[in-house]
């Protein structure tokens, strides 16, 4: 696991600015911590020293904290100022961290959602639609602890830790050696354990998404199960799914927390060793009490950012794994349907399919298989055939919403020119089609309507639009016979004003009103 995903910094502006400011604040914090340790040792040394102090135990660093601070009131004044500064820095840092975290997540989410929408109806239908939502919402929210907790500590580990180590080295090289020997062990263990957790964390997210989808599926089906009197059984299944997730999570935590333990063990034990060593050397007069006090106060501060990095590592791993998944979506190329040429005006144009063939998502069948027809302006063309043979898929391909695996779609314009869909802007092509899908969504407000209401609203939107091509998928489903008759009348009216009407239907009245009827067939995919 990389502690900082370079793509976050490279692609997301707020992330970059935040890191720079936080690093600067970290540097200021390091200086304050050092000065505070000096002030503490100045204040306490006269009390603990067996004889009046003659030497300056801080050496040339005493320049930063004058000997005058051995006077209690001077030391307390120094500490007071330093505490006030640290309070201010803490406030600023916290505010910045939250703002940056929320901004980065929002920016990343907007890109992921927009890109996922571009990946096409087949991608949405394949079920990745549900798991990408988990990634885009709960997954990415895991980045907030990364920005608020982990990243600042990481930057403190890059500023406070080395600076304080240098200070200790100048004060007492033996203590610095003890600390210096343990610090390299920290990243070594971090990398080793990080390698283990990375795979685990990725698996954990995967398990979470799978479980979310399956629990969701059970709950979505609750009304159905209730109607069949089978609603109580799946509680056991919910428990089983949950227990499996708990065991997987605990397994991952046992290893994830191991890194934290090793970190705390190494760092706290090293502080203890520094203290013990200083104690025995004080007995033999090898080190001054002023020096010993400064080192004793500074030793834990060297490790503190490292320890905090370890503490927040697990949360950040989840967030970063989610960011990784998000970038994977962003790096998925949408299957391009059209080309670079400008889309022709489809007013008065015939839509021509030639040998159009689309493989099903499992590649087992072709539906439709070698579909050829011409839908002329001013006419109603009905696609008929058994369910599952590719009528809806054919409509998507005609509108340029998905690419066929073989064959072609083209427009024959009123001036006689033929323009293949593959050579022109497919989006502009699609926007000339008034489409009513089988279960229209109609956006946010559509979610409160019944299926029949949505169908009627979607049909009204299509008929009332001025788009030259009408594409209706089972337009009479969910309608009563009176409304069905009305649909037939309006379809004929649309053709009468020169629109190109393509309908997929089983409705005999509708098929009877069509000018031409095209049968859609499927086939097994040829093996090899």
């Amino acid at each position, binding site marked *: 696991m990389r502690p900082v995903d370079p793509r976050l910094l490279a692609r997301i502006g707020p992330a970059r600015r935040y890191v720079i400011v936080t690093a600067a604040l970290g540097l200021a914090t390091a200086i304050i911590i050092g000065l505070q340790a000096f002030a503490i040792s100045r204040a306490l040394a006269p009390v603990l020293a067996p004889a009046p102090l003659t030497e300056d135990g801080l050496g040339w660093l005493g320049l930063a904290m004058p000997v005058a601070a051995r006077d209690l009131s001077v030391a307390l004044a120094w500490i007071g100022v330093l505490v006030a500064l640290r*309070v201010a820095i803490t406030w600023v840092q916290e505010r910045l961290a939250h703002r940056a975290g929320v901004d980065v997540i929002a920016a990343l989410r907007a890109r992921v959602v927009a890109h996922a929408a571009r990946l096409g109806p087949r991608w949405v239908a394949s079920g990745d639609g549900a798991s990408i939502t988990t990634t885009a919402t709960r997954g990415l929210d895991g980045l907030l602890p990364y920005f608020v907790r982990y990243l600042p500590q990481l930057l403190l580990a890059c500023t406070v830790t080395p600076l304080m180590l240098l200070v200790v080295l100048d004060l007492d090289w033996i203590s610095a050696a003890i600390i210096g020997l343990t610090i390299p062990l920290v990243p070594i263990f971090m990398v080793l354990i990080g390698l283990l957790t990375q795979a685990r964390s990725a698996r954990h997210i995967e398990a979470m998404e799978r479980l979310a989808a399956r629990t969701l599926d059970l709950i979505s089906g609750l009304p159905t199960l209730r109607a069949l009197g089978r609603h109580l059984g799946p509680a056991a299944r919910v428990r089983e799914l949950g227990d499996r997730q708990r065991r997987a999570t605990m397994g991952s935590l046992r290893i994830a927390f191991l890194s934290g333990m090793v970190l*705390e063990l190494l760092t706290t034990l090293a502080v203890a060793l520094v*203290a013990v060593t200083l104690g025995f050397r004080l007995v033999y007069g090898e080190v001054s009490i002023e020096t010993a006090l400064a080192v004793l106060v500074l030793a834990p501060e060297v490790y503190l950012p490292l320890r905090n990095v370890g503490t927040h590592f697990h949360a950040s791993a989840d967030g970063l794994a989610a960011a990784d998944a998000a970038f994977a979506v962003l790096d998925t190329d949408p299957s391009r349907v059209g080309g670079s040429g400008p889309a022709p005006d489809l007013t008065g144009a015939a839509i021509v399919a030639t040998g159009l063939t689309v493989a099903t998502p499992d590649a087992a069948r072709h539906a439709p298989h070698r579909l050829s027809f011409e839908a002329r302006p001013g006419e109603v063309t009905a696609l008929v055939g058994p369910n599952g043979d590719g009528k809806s898929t054919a409509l998507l391909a005609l509108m340029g919403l998905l690419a066929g695996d073989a064959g072609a779609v083209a427009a024959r314009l009123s001036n006689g020119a033929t323009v293949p869909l593959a050579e022109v802007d497919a989006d502009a092509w699609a926007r000339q089609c008034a489409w009513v899908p089988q279960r229209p969504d109609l956006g946010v407000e559509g979610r409160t309507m019944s299926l029949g209401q949505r169908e009627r609203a979607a049909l009204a939107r299509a008929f009332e639009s001025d788009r030259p091509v009408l594409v209706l998928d*089972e337009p009479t489903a969910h309608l009563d016979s009176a409304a069905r008759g009305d649909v037939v009348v309006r379809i004929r009216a649309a053709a009468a004003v020169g629109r190109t009407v393509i309908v997929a239907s089983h409705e005999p009245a509708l098929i009877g009103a069509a000018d031409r009827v095209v049968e859609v067939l499927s086939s097994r995919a040829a093996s090899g």
Partner: protein
Amino acid sequence: MTAGGVSPARALRRALTDAQVSRARTTGAVLWGTAAIGSAVGLAATAAWMIAKAAGMPSPADLAIAAVVVRFFGVGRGLFRYLERLASHDVALRGVVALRVRVYERLASAPPSRVLPLSRGQVMARLGADIDAVGDAVVRGLIPTAVAVSVSGVAVTIAAITVPVAGAALAAWLLLAGLGTAALTRRSARVAASKGVTADALVTERSLAAIEAAPEHLVWGTQADAMDALANAETDSRAAHEAAARPAALAAAVQVLAAGGALITSIAIAVSQAFAGTIGPTTAAVVALLPLAAFEAVNAIPAAVQQLERSAAAARRIEELAPYDDAGQVPPPAEQRGNRGPASASAVRSAVTIEARELSAAWPQMAPTRPVSFVVAPGEVVAIVGPSGIGKTTLVATLAGALAPHGGEALIDGERASVAHLGAAIAVTAEDAHLFGTTVFENLRAARGDITEAQARDALATVGLAAWVETLPDGLDTLVGSGGGTVSGGERRRLLLARALLTRQPAHVIDEPGEHLDAAGREALRAVLARMREEGRTVVIVTHDLDLLDAADRTVSIGSVGSDA
């Protein structure tokens, strides 16, 4: 509604009771946590004592015990902390699983009218995140708070034993860092945190809408609207996070202030008393340096309070979505693992008669259906016809006992139809019945658990799907996508008919079976109705497809009063 007046704190307590959070396990986690941070305090105190002692240049042997104790604390901290983290997460995860099951059970036994309107985005945002939030209350709320209290007690005791006034000063600063920040965090974050969860749920819903209906948005040029809706939700979410972050930042600053203040007062007391000769140098060192380690535990309080607030809001929403019975009654436990029949299988009768007497049906604020009277005897098929939107589905819900009649009576074998009949005496195949994201076979077994493969194949043959199953890569064990996305509309409908055929309830209502049915699908429906009639079942079909009426023994036409749709 009972949940309306439930306070979030009370909802959280009930949710934690529901989650069966073990007291013993929780106490264990708190003890490990106290040992871990207590080790840090102990390390600071003994190291200070040792350095101060050593400065007096005693015999090295005088430092031996202190040296061992310092090293022990050095090891203990990491070890105890590891044990605490594992113990607390285990407690929480167990609670989450238990709570998930309880919430599912409550939803399952809730009135169907409450379950029906759950939209996908809501379910996703609510049940997933909210139940996890209750688990977080344990790990990030209750346990850290308990550890902070016990560790602070240890630190104050150490200081007070040696210099009472120093103990009192430390206690005061610890109280500021604990209670002060807790009150600050709670007061300002209470509204903000609940807003934050609501705003995040809206973000989830809008994300889902933007992705799922993407092709429709592309064609109609409404992608920008969908993205704007998401951006608006995101703005609300940002404002809610801001509101929650401000007190959090203030609390963090107060923590630094309290720890700094404690350091200043401790040094002042220790140094002045030492110069006055009232305490020795070792005591002075311990008292002066103790604050450097004493604040770690109490610094976890603001985060803990915020977590508890968020969890309480989440628990309240869970309760609103899946309320407890008014009597506080516990819903019946889940069946044992493995698939058995319906819960009340013993009460299933072999044949029932359905009767409507001047029955009219309506959801609240809906025009009622015209009163109708009819009787369906075992072995009969009655078709209810009427224009769409007239309330046929509502009438079905009333006939099956899911909804109380608006007027008249719905009777099943002479008893008033009630929720108890639904799924026991009578089953319903709804217009939008769910196809589960599992195998074809398991989807059929949703009808009842003891179906054999031969029975499944027989039912599939009846609806004309025998050849279709043969073409599937794994036959009956082929997974059909979430929501049945990878089967066509006609296949889906016929699978649902096969499932209806396999139910064991003596009465069955099939709603709007004419939809998306091609010629083969209509044949399938006729075959299913014929089989049900042979089996002596009582069948009601609801349709507006007049071609299907010849498959029924009688037809009942409904229409709402004063409306011809």
